[in-house]
Every structure is written in C-alpha cells, then in structure tokens.
C-alpha cells in the first residue's frame, strides 16, 4: 500500500519540529533556551511557507480518512499564522514568567498539529484524534504557570470541562454513526440526504452542537471560558481564543455543512438561536468586567456567536464568511493579547484601570489595542467590518432578526471596548516613563495592526482566495 505522502509533508514537519524542540531542550545549555522561541517561530514560518507553496497539491491519505483540500489548507494557514504570532508575542513572557521553554514551544507545536489534523480530518475518528491532541496540549499549556494557583485552577476547570464536552461530542458522533453506519463524513452526508428525519438524529445533532459548543465557547456552554482565559498564561489565552475556536469551527463546518447538509433545516434554526443568544449574552456580560482578560473572554464568546452566524444557512457563502472572519480574527486577538501580555510583564497587572495613560507611554501598544478591538467590534475601516458584512449577508434574507440582533449588539460591544480606550487615552499615567517594546513584540504588534487595516480597506484578493477554498470544500 503506497500512499502519497507529499500532501502531508507539513504535518510530518510539525511532528518533527515538536520532537526536535523537545530534544534541543534536553541537549542545549540552559542559558541558550530562550533562543528556542526564535527557532520555533522561524521553523513555523518555514512550515507555513510549505503549506502555501503546496496550496494546490491536494489529495487524500489513508483511503479518504485524511483529506487535504484548499479548505483545510486555508485553515492550516490560519492555525500556523496564529501559532507564529503567538510564539513571537510570548517570548518575553515565557522567559520571564514561565521557564521551561522547550516544553512550552514543543507542546504549542503539538497543539497546532492537533488543529491541523482537525482541519483535514474527514472521518469522525480522525477528527476526534486531532481534537484530543489539541485539547490535551492545551490542558498542559493552560496550567503552565505551575506555581500560580489561578493557573492551576484554570487548568483543572479546563480538564473537567474538556473531558465532559469530548464525551458528549463522542456520544453524538456515535449516534450519527448508528444512523449512517459509516464514519466518513461525505458518506454520512449522502446517507442522511435520503434519510427521513429521525428523533435519534435530532438527539445526535444536539449532542454534537453541545460538544462543539463547549469548544467554541458558545452560550450556554461558555462558562469555562472566562475563568480559563483569566488563569491561563496570556499568550496561551490568545492561542486558545483563536486556534481552539477556529479548529472547532473547522470540524463543525465539516460535520454539519458537509455531513448533514440534507437535514440542514433541522439544525439551521438551532444554530441561529445559539448564535443570537451567544452574541447577546457575550456582549452584555462583557460590559461590567474590570479585568482585561475576562473582558476579552466574554468578547471572545460574542465573537463565537458572530462566527456561528455563518453556519446558519449551510451555504458556500456562509462557509466563506466564516473562513474570512476567522482569518481576520486571528490578527485582532493576537494583537490585543500580545499587548496585554507585554503590559503584564511590565506591571504585573491585568486590571483595566491600570492601563491608564498607556497611549502616552507607548502609542504603538495603545493603537494596536484600539485597532484590534475595533476590528472585533466590526467598525470600518478595519477588517472586522468586511467580515461581519460577509457573515450577515448570508442571513439577512431568511433570518433578518439575527442580522438586526447581531449588528446592534456589535455596536453595543463598542461600548466596552471604548471604556478601555477611555482609560488608555484620557488618563495621565502614574509612571510616565515611555515603554520600550522589544523587537519580536513590536513586530507582532505592527504586523497585526497593518493586517487589520489593510484587509479592511482592500479585502479583494483574500476574499478571492477564500472563495476558491470554500468552493473546494463542496467539491467532494
């Protein structure tokens, strides 16, 4: 049995990188460990280049269990980009607060690998495998601040809820398997397309939505998110917010849009309600928060709601909108969290009130935070606006109420983002010495900000690429 391994070279490279970083950690002298961050980030850039260069090199491995199409390639680009930015943004943080660089970067690489597997998985088992690889890596990363009780608490909560949600998800998958008799998503789709709607199917769908709802932190499965986001090391929080969420969306799309296309009526309305509730709760609960990481956690919940909007119609336009929004969402989240973690390094505080006068101490950090937050709020000319435009375009015809709720709530979200802006810009700093931003962090900040602006003003080329990728998704 000969397989075409060339299509999974990026995955193989990821495994090698993860093991290599671990080995390097064993043989390198302790004082050169901080360089591992640079090594990891440049290797990841190389792997990203591999994915991009092999953009059209599509195919399947293991008899269709593992599928490489432009859809999965695009998601891999998302995950790798996020990982690269997170590594860049976390170097200073890791060196100062965490230690254990080899383990940190290695596990980060493995969690990214898990996401990549999720994006490409074409059957339930492989999906689950990728999901668990990602989740278990995240469990380790979340409690990486080993001496901090908050971090350990966050880790414990994450273990429990990740376990429960995986169990629920697995049960849902097994019910679907019971109906369809196959684990291959495409075959499930063909069988369900001719199947009558069964009560069992409905139970399966609800279980799946619940299990994945946990992973993407959709209301009412969101309660772990604020605690875990707050307790986890800040760079990991950002990776959790982007990577874990988008990877779960990748399999959500795969299972629902491809596997249950024929019965989309039965879950479309469910998704719409879930999206609406998530948007409302996420945004409203974010308003009274005083800790910036909790604020971002609730805003992240609301963002999950927006992305869910793209699921409602189970259409190519919806898939495309999710991919587009996911792409710009990385840069927004990583931008904000990089600034947050760098500021935490200096001041040791995550309270919003301690951000007073940031605009005068470091205009770059303040500007990046403003731009990234406004991208999330969907204010033009930043990229989030285009993303929301695509998302709500899909529902405006049949679910007008959802579009109205979504857009009004995104304007409400401006309120709490502006409260942060208020503190950063209006107040005078207690300590007015300028902040010197280290090179990797400065690169990350400038890059994320530029992307948010450029994609907001000129999204044409990206949207062309995504159109093709979304089209490839339906070609099976």
């Amino acid at each position, binding site marked *: 049995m000969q397989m075409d391994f060339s299509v999974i070279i990026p995955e193989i490279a990821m495994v090698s990188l993860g093991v290599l970083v671990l080995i390097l950690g064993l043989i390198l002298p302790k004082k050169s460990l901080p360089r591992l961050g640079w090594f990891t980030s440049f290797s990841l850039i190389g792997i990203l280049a591999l994915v991009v260069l092999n953009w059209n090199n599509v195919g399947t491995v293991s008899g269709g269990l593992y599928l490489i199409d432009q859809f999965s390639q695009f998601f891999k680009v998302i995950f790798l980009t996020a990982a690269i930015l997170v590594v860049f943004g976390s170097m200073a943080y890791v060196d100062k607060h965490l230690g254990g660089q080899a383990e940190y970067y290695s596990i980060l690489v493995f969690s990214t690998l898990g996401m990549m597997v999720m994006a490409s998985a074409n059957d339930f088992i492989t999906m689950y495998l990728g999901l668990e690889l990602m989740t278990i890596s995240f469990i380790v990363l979340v409690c990486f601040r080993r001496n901090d009780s908050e971090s350990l608490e966050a880790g414990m909560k994450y273990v429990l809820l990740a376990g429960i949600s995986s169990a629920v998800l697995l049960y849902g998958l097994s019910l679907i398997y019971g109906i369809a008799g196959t684990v291959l998503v495409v075959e499930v789709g063909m069988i369900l397309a001719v199947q009558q709607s069964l009560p069992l199917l409905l139970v399966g769908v609800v279980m799946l939505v619940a299990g994945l709802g946990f992973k993407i932190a959709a209301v009412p499965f969101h309660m772990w998110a604020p605690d875990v986001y707050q307790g986890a090391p800040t760079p990991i929080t950002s990776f959790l917010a982007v990577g874990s969420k988008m990877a779960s969306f990748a399999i959500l799309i795969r299972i629902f849009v491809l596997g249950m296309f024929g019965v989309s009526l039965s879950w479309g309305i469910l998704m719409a309600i879930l999206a609406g509730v998530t948007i409302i709760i996420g945004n409203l609960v974010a308003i009274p928060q005083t800790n910036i990481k909790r604020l971002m956690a609730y805003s992240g919940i609301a963002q999950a709601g927006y992305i869910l909007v793209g699921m409602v119609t189970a259409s190519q336009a919806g898939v495309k909108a999710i991919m587009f929004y996911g792409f710009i969402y990385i840069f927004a989240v990583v931008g904000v969290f990089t600034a947050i973690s760098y500021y935490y390094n200096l001041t040791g505080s995550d309270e919003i009130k301690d951000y007073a006068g940031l605009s005068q101490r470091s205009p770059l950090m303040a500007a990046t935070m403003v731009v990234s937050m406004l991208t999330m709020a969907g204010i033009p000319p930043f990229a989030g606006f285009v993303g929301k435009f695509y998302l709500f375009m899909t529902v405006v015809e049949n679910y007008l109420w959802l579009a*109205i709720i979504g857009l009004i709530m995104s*304007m409400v979200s401006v309120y709490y983002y502006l409260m942060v802006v208020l503190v950063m810009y*209006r107040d005078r700093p207690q300590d007015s010495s300028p902040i010197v931003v280290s090179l990797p962090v400065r690169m990350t900040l400038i890059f994320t900000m530029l992307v948010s602006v450029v994609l907001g003003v000129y999204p*044409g080329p990206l*949207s062309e690429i995504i159109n093709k990728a979304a089209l490839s998704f339906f070609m099976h």
Partner: protein
Amino acid sequence: MKSLPFLTIILLAPAICAIIMAFIPKEQVNPIKWLAATGTFISLAMSAYLYGVYDTAAGGLQFVERVPWIKDLGVSYFLAVDGISLPMLLLTNMIGFSAVFASWNLESRHREFFILLCLLISGVMGTFIAHDIFIFLLFYEVVVIPIYIMVIIWGSSKRVTKEYAGMKLTIYLLVGSAFLLVGIIALFVKSIPILGEPNMSFAALAQAGNQMSAFDQKWLFALMLIGFGSLISMWPFHSWSPDGYAGAPTAVSMIHAGVLKKIGGYGLIKIALFSLPLGAKFWAPYMAALGIAGVAYAAFAALAQKDLKYIVGYSSVSHMGYVMLAIGTVNVIGINGAVANMFAHGVMAALFFSAIGVIYEKTKTRWIPDLGGLARQMPLLAVSFMLAAFASLGLPGLIGFIPEFTIFIAGFKAFGGFAVIAIGGIVITALYALRAGANTLFGPPREEYNNLRDIRGAELVPLAVLGLVLIAGGLLPSLLFDMVNSGVEPLMNQLDNALKIGGLI
C-alpha cells in the same frame, strides 16, 4: 483625456499629513500645526477648484475615478462628485480648514489632536465623494472613533461630563448605524437577483431598488430612516446632539454640527430616497411631521438654555428639522432646499461654534448670565458671532435665507397650512439667537474681561473663510443653487418616472 485623480488627492491629503505627523516628535508643536493646516488647505483649494470647473450644464457624475475593489461583492473604489456631493465636499473642507485654526491655541497633546482631526476630516470627505455604498460605509463609521477619543481627552465637562457626552454620541450613532447596515445589506442582497450580479454602486442599487416590491421598499426605507435619521438628529433621535456638542472640543463641535450631521441628510437623499422611491413616498409625511416636530421642539428647548453651546446644539436640531421637512416633500424644490440648507447651516453652525470656542477659551465660561458686553473688548469676535446668529435666523442677504425660503415654498406646496408651524419656528429662532447675542456681546462691559484680547492671527481664519461664504452665499445664491439643482433635478426626474410606474403596478 486622463486627468489628475483629484478626488483621491483631496481625500488623502489630510490623512497623509496625519501619518507624517505620527513621526514628528511630539514637542514640535508648530510643524505639526502647520502640517495639519497644509493638508486641509490642499484639500480646500482643490475642492474649490473642482467647484469652479464643475460643468453644471452637463450635470451628473464628474471627476469619476473607478477601480474594481472587491470582486465578489461587486465593490469598486468609485469616487465622483455631482451637484449634491460637491457642495458638501467643499463645506467639509472649509470647515476642516477652519477647525484646524480654531484649535490653534490647544493646550496639551497637540500631536494626537491634529492626527485625529486630520483623519476625521478625511473620513467625512470620503462619505461625500464615495459613490459605492461599501466605500461609503467604510467612511461612515470611520469618523466615530476619532470623535470619541477627541471628546474624552479635550472635551469639557459642564452640565454633563465629557465621558458621558462622548459615549452618548458614539453609541447613539452606532446603534443607529446598525439599523442602517441591516437595511443596506438587505438592499444589496435583494439587488443581486435583480441585477444578475453583485454591484454596490449607488446607481446600480437605485436601479435594483426601484424594481422592488412596495413592501420591501417600505421596510428597507424605515431601517435607513432610523440610521440616517439618528445621524441628522431627527426628532426624537436627537438627544445626543446638544449633549454631545456641549462636551466636545470646539473643532469637533464645528465638524460634527457643520458636516457630520449632514451625512445623514445626504445619505437619506442620495441613497434611501433615490433607491427606494415607493418607500420614500410612503414615509414622506411621517418624515415631514417629525421634521416639523423637531423644528418646534428644538426651538423651544433652545429658548430655555443658558449655556451657549446648548443653544447652538438645539438650534442645529431645529435646522435639521427643516431639512427633514424638505426631504419629506419629495419634490425638486424641496430637495434643492434641503441640500442648500444643509450647506448653509453647516457654514453658520461652524462659525457659531468657533466663536463660542473663542469665548470659552478666553473667559472660561459659556454660561450666558456670566457673560456680557464682550463686543467692546472683542469687536471682531462679535462680528463673527452676530454673522452666524443672523444667518441662523434667516436674515436675507446671508446664506440662510434662500434655502429656508425654498423649503417653505416646497412645504406649502406639499402640505399646505401644516407647514406654518415650521415658519413659526423661525420666529423663535430669531428670539433665542438675538437674545443670546444681546446677553453675551452687548450691554455694559464687564470689568473682569477688560484684559481680553480680540481674536487675531490664526484665530481670524474661521471668520475669514466661513464669514466670506456666509455673505457670498447670501448675495449670490445662484452659486449654490445652480450647482445643487444640477445634481437634484435629473435624479428627481428618474424618481418621478419610477413613482409613476410604481403607481401603475
């Protein structure tokens, strides 16, 4: 003949200056100020030039720049001006240029202020020259955030805190714009099957919108009315306006009252009215009624105010009531009047706010009972204040008279005696405007203000620019009206045709 991309240059000049400013050390106050002045002056000079060479006989869209932008949404970078948008563009640049000089004596954090101001001016201009709805939306909300930051940093807390004012202004407009966005997205999505391809240019959407069912047109128009209406401070969505202006720094008040509000009226005419004629016809009486209510309510409210900025704030709500009434008439005269009145009010409101800004800067108060007799100490200031006040009450010979007169004619034609209430508003306007002037400028001079210096140097620029236009527009109204009419008339003819066909169905 491939001419210069005038509109792009006009649009980007202030923005580019803002970017350059970001790299100047913040202690270098004078280079920053002059850079801001240069950027806005380039835009002003070029838009004045365009105003001069625009071919009113030919009408239509001129100086067109069109580049495909986002293919799958049918968006193109489509800049052009017609008889409606050109006056607005000119107005923006006059006020922007004046606003830079009105902020000349700013006390702190100059660099941030002028960067934000320049970005704001670029943003406002963008809405008036974009003829693609996506590009329009990009600029529409761009302006909100710089304004918020400017209000919270440089604003003033009197009756309400500046934080409250800034947030109220921002959230009000954003929530309004959420409705607008839904309306525009829905219009766009519905237009795709009609046009056979996605296309977001105003003209294409108008063509598609005209073919939609009356029901669709009605609810789409309602959504847009809420969005644009809250921006133009249509009663009862007006309450952000006086509070917001009171909290904002002078330059922001000038730009906001002068041009930003007008985006609401402009959008209502250029997008909502021409795209959805049946919807407009249906909502027209309601718009007119709300307009008249706004005129009467705001005029009485202004009477009761003692803070100068609140008076002008309510006065602007009242003037926008006339604009709403004019749009509600849905005839050529009315729309002409609406556009002209927006222009006229922009000039006078900006002059008003700059004069109040000077008073506040020198005396540290805007409270009328604490003021008096300033005309002795500051005669030139008194000139600019009274010019604005006279224009505001519609004195013939100044810019305010002809537009208001036009609106009354249109109002009578469309609604008859009902429009009398609106004319009643003008009497009250005269009352509060003159009273404010009398109590602030005239009467016995107060000793504590004896050492105040009259406006001079850079402070004279707003008076020179805006005052000149105020008089010129009054003496030669055809300068403005020919232009506006060249834009309105052809579009209104199309609208009438659409209404006739719609009526038959």
